[in-house]
């Protein structure tokens, strides 16, 4: 077929075809039709396109008894039959002749269509060769011409024409069938029949055609119907093809088709002279008011409707005799029952769509996918793998309440619940009928799952396959271990050299790497801590005690690793070009955050060492070095403020808690180090510096107050007094400047300063107190004055802060009033 639908076959080919052309020799009975239609440019639809040509492919060999069927025993001639149905053959021949005579190409020929001609070409599009069936007097004349089947015609001719010929015969049969026959036929369809013999089958097919196939095309206009029919007829035997073993499935199908709701339409003229057919139709249409799918027999779900409509009617008289209450309860129950029935009906609509085997098959696929999706990693709840894979969730769940039944239920549980569910369902539902079948499925599925789990475990964790002799690797992937796009393998030796080289140059990256090392040590330690075995007692078995011992020694080792990673013990250089490694670690916020976590695992000695190291390097700790108030009262950069905040929240509390339990000599030692090594006026102008000094001084004062009566530490106390005086002398000149200057007095965040002054004031001699007051008098007056003008709440706070100091030296803000 060419683009415009012209026939591109060359004339010479056409003539060759013509040579052996019989009545139905044409491959496509409608080819001629479409060929003409294609010439008309308005004609868009080609029948060729809609006709699938199934008829040509049909393998039909059982034509031996055609003579019996079509009355071949009576010699019938073409003349008696009439040739008026042979339009296709006739016109094709005629056209072939014309073309041959005129010698014109087909395209030109087709444009000549409108010319008056003696052959029936112009009317051809409307005619299909079946028009004759419309004539009421045609049918009696119908007799098959045996000669058209065989002589001089090839195999193809035997197949297609036969089917077409079947159509008139079916009409004949239709006319002849009585109501009883129709019923008998329906019964035959809906009952299991043994495989029919070849010739019987064909006859059956024809009858089938009548009962089953007719209603559908009836909805079409007659003309279309006629075009459609051969196709339909040709399809019919395909339905017939499978031996009718599955009757239960087949019956509803047929029945649905029969009773498919169709508007009662005036029967076409075509059927007027077929009374039995009409009767049949009416019979078919009677159940239209009923549910759309109403099988005459069988299918239980459809009978449910009427069955529950029935009882209320029969019980109507009984109901009359009931009391109101009874009736109401009865009605309620009835309604409930009806509702339930309806629900069951709705649910049962899809009953039996899948066999148990189907379901099991799908379940197994799903389970297998579950296993492969997790990469075969066996996630025992609480196991190492589980924790490694799902650390955040597991720990989070522990921290914030018990583990939920989330979507990430461990796989094995998942599989178990799943299996249990299906298993129980089968156990319940099927045990009545097939007690063994259900169990068998579940068992098989369990085995399957077990095997799948085994296979997944056996699979190498490393998802790669190196084929021998190949240049590359094949990487497998799943959602947990995605296929690596890059697979770089670093030579180990080189990287080690580089690491050593880097370690020499202490830079930011090295510090960050140190911090990460601390974290990984810390996490190993914490993991180990979680595995703490139950504490052994005297009568626990030796292996338990041994396990505990091993745990403790491991703990010691990990602790040592952590301590080394902290780099506290790195030698202190006298004139360092770079800060101490530990101070470098402290310079990063994540380094600060690690301190409280590490501190828990350190022993007293280590804690003191750490504190000492901080005390020595107090002026180069970033939160003091960078937090020195800039000139012109500019505020600190936000980043520095943030770091200061983190330091006071993360690092100070553990240090404070340690100092709070430290004996006096340690405080003396620490303060002495600070005074010796650090420029005190410098650190006094920073929040952290002030806080640390407050921490030391206040602890000393507390110890002093609690041990007032015990004179055994006179040595220490003398030492402390000396240190205190040194400190006081150091701070006195800068007392007016120790308050933060970045904001005005009213908004100033200076509580830490008042705390420091209070701590100093408590331990001060009267003379020192006097000097203290002189130093900060201006600020006190200012703050009190400003505080008076503030709203109630803020005033309370501000005055309270000032009072910290005032009360320490035996005064009160009220006295200033």
């Amino acid at each position, binding site marked *: 077929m060419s683009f415009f639908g012209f026939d591109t076959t060359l004339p010479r080919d056409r003539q060759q075809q013509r040579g052996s052309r019989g009545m139905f020799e044409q491959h496509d009975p409608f080819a001629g039709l479409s060929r003409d239609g294609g010439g008309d440019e308005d004609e868009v639809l080609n029948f060729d396109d809609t006709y699938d040509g199934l008829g040509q492919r049909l393998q039909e060999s059982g034509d031996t008894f055609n003579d019996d069927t079509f009355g071949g025993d009576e010699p019938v001639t073409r003349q008696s039959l009439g040739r008026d149905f042979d339009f296709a053959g006739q016109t094709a021949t005629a056209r072939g002749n014309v073309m041959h005579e005129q010698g014109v190409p087909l395209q030109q020929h087709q444009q000549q269509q409108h010319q008056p001609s003696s052959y029936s070409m112009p009317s051809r599009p409307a005619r299909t060769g079946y028009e004759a069936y419309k004539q009421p007097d045609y049918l009696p004349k119908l007799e098959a011409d045996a000669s058209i089947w065989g002589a001089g015609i090839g195999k193809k001719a035997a197949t297609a024409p036969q089917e077409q010929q079947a159509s008139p015969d079916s009409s004949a049969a239709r006319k002849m069938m009585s109501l009883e026959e129709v019923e008998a036929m329906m019964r035959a369809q809906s009952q299991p029949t043994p495989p029919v013999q070849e010739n019987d089958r064909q006859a059956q097919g024809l009858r089938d055609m009548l009962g089953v196939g007719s209603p559908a095309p009836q909805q079409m206009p007659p003309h279309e119907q006629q075009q459609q029919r051969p196709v339909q007829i040709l399809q019919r035997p395909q339905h017939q093809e499978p031996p009718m073993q599955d009757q239960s499935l087949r019956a509803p199908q047929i029945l649905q088709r029969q009773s498919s709701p169709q508007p009662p339409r005036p029967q076409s003229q075509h059927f007027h002279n077929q009374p039995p057919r009409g009767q049949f139709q009416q019979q078919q249409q009677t159940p239209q008011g009923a549910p759309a799918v109403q099988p005459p027999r069988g299918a239980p779900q459809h009978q449910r409707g009427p069955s529950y409509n029935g009882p209320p009617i029969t019980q109507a008289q009984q109901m009359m005799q009931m009391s109101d209450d009874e009736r109401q309860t009865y009605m309620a129950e009835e309604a409930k029952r009806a509702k339930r029935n309806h629900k069951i009906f709705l649910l049962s609509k899809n009953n039996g769509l899948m066999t148990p085997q189907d379901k099991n098959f799908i379940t197994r696929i799903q389970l297998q996918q579950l296993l492969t*999706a*997790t990469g075969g990693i066996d996630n025992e709840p609480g196991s190492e793998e589980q924790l*490694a*894979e*799902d*650390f*955040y*969730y*597991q*720990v*989070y*769940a522990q*921290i*914030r309440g018990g583990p*939920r039944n*989330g*979507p*990430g239920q461990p796989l094995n549980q998942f599989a178990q619940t799943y299996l249990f569910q299906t298993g129980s369902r089968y156990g319940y539902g099927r045990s009545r009928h097939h007690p063994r079948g259900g169990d068998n499925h579940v068992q098989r599925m369990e085995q399957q799952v077990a095997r799948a789990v085994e296979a997944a475990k056996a699979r190498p964790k*490393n998802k*790669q396959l190196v084929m021998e002799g190949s240049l590359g690797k094949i990487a497998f992937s799943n*959602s*947990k*271990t995605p296929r*690596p796009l890059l*697979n*770089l*393998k670093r030579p180990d030796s080189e990287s080690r050299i580089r690491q050593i080289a880097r370690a020499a140059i202490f830079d930011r990256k090295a510090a960050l790497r140190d911090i*990460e090392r601390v*974290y*990984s040590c810390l*996490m190993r330690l914490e993991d180990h801590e979680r595995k703490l075995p139950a504490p052994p007692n005297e009568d626990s078995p030796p292996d338990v005690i041994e396990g505990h011992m091993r745990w403790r020694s491991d703990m010691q080792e990990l602790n040592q690793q952590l301590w080394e990673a902290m780099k506290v013990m790195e030698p202190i250089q006298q004139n360092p070009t770079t800060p101490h490694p530990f101070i470098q670690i402290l310079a990063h916020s*994540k380094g600060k*955050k690690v301190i409280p976590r590490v501190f828990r695992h350190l022993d007293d000695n280590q804690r003191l060492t750490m504190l000492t190291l901080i005390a020595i390097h107090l002026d180069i700790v970033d939160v003091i070095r960078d937090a020195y108030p800039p000139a012109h009262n500019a505020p600190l950069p936000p980043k520095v403020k943030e770091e200061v905040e983190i330091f006071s929240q993360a690092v100070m509390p553990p240090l404070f808690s340690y100092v709070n339990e430290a004996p006096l000599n340690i405080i003396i030692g620490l303060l002495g180090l600070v005074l010796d090594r650090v420029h005190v006026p410098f650190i006094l102008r920073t929040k952290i510096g002030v806080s640390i000094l407050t921490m030391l001084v206040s602890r000393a004062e507390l110890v002093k107050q609690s041990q007032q009566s015990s004179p055994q530490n006179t040595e220490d106390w003398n030492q402390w007094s000396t240190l205190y005086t040194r400190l006081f002398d150091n701070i006195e000149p800068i007392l007016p400047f120790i308050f933060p200057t970045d904001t005005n007095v009213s908004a100033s965040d200076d509580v830490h300063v008042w705390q420091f002054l209070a701590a100093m004031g408590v331990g001060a001699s009267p003379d020192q107190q006097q000097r203290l007051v002189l130093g900060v008098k201006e600020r006190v007056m200012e703050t009190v004055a400003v505080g008076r003008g503030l709203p109630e709440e803020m005033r309370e706070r501000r005055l309270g802060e000032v009072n910290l100091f005032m009360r320490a030296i035996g005064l009160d803000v009220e006295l200033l009033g």
Partner: protein
Amino acid sequence: MLFFSFFKTLVNHEVTVELKNDISIRGTLKSVDQYLNIKLDDISVVEELKYPHLSSVKNVFIRGSVVRYVHLPAAAVDTPLLEDATRREASQAATKAKQG
């Protein structure tokens, strides 16, 4: 698995999922799977006027691959823990890379 693990802890929290087609859907996270497919309940579209066809939708299943961002409830995120989990993931990846 870090993100899977992380999103599991957000179940029953309200999140806003921004899709690659610019639709933002706020709703209660009902479940998430290893592909980070997301099930949301009680959803509302942030720009309701722009996407009226979603105004009657009550819950959605979102394929993980079409998600651009998930806006998290800050209170439900344990940052230090998440940092640790990230470290673990990284160290695991590193050991795997060494093996490979």
